[in-house]
């Protein structure tokens, strides 16, 4: 059975760099950007952004979006 693949987008200008999404992603696919956003935070970023969908380990489980206080994450799934 093929695993569902997913992807997320993180709005870096909404993110406050709280690390909650990073702490809950089961596949550790989120890290902290080294570039400041306009609010002065280092926002989270999705490490699979530059990969093709069929290379993703992201399953679109939405756990990151669930804990994100700032609704910065949108989740897509096949």
């Amino acid at each position, binding site marked *: 059975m093929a695993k569902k693949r*997913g*992807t997320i987008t993180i709005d870096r*200008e*909404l993110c*406050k*760099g*709280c*690390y*909650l999404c990073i*702490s*809950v992603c089961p596949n550790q696919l989120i890290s902290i950007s080294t570039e400041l956003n306009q*609010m002065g*935070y280092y926002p989270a970023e999705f490490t699979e952004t530059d990969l093709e*969908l069929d290379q993703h380990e992201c399953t*679109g489980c*939405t*756990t990151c*979006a*669930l*804990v*994100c*206080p*700032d*609704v910065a*994450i*949108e*989740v*897509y*799934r*096949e």
Partner: protein
Amino acid sequence: MLKKVFTRPRYLKDRVFHYCPGCGHSIIHRLIAEVLEELEIGDRTICVPPAGCAVLAYDYIDVDMGESPHGRGTALATGIKRVLPDRIVFSYQGDGDIAAIGTAETIHAANRGENISVIFVNNGCYGMTGGQMAPTTLPGQNSTTTPGGRDVSRDAAPIDLSEMLAIAKGSTYIERTAVNSPKNIRRTKKAITKAFKIQMAEKGFSLIEILSPCPVNWKLSPVEAAKRIEEEITNYFPIKVIKDNIGKIA
């Protein structure tokens, strides 16, 4: 091929939250917005926000809102609901609002069995005013008015208002949850849904107490704050259904 499975809910305005990084208010606001959309009640809902960090809730949750003096939200909600009984009326209040200055109003609204829902955000401190002791601050917990930690002999023990409300004959449903983990966030959403469904069915007073992180005033990172709820706060305020006079509700 790719479907969007998570996005900003309709009843959450497209604005940056002023809340601190990792604040529980942000999560709870989103859950409420999701529930209003799923139950299709947003256009007949009126909310009474608190005095506290969430005083500006009307900037975020897209429903009619009526500001209340500190602590009196359940009294305002009573007035609104009695005049407009077919609308969904809920108050959103912190621990000072509910369990200090507003204790009488909270207990009596529950005792009267007012057909309202109360969202009680318990973050164990007075956030907006800079981190003073709250009725729910834990023994030993530092705050700006309990330097050195809350000392029960000097500062009294924390108050468990949800347990008190369960004794009130008019209260139908009291549950304590938290928003410190994915599992608890899902549980909180179910609890909020139940509270609104109870009101829609005109079955009386419900209150959902939500343990919520306050990273800035606890002087912890958001991840550490979430952990503190799990490891420390739930020992004092356990996550559970405190009173259920309704059982399953469709």
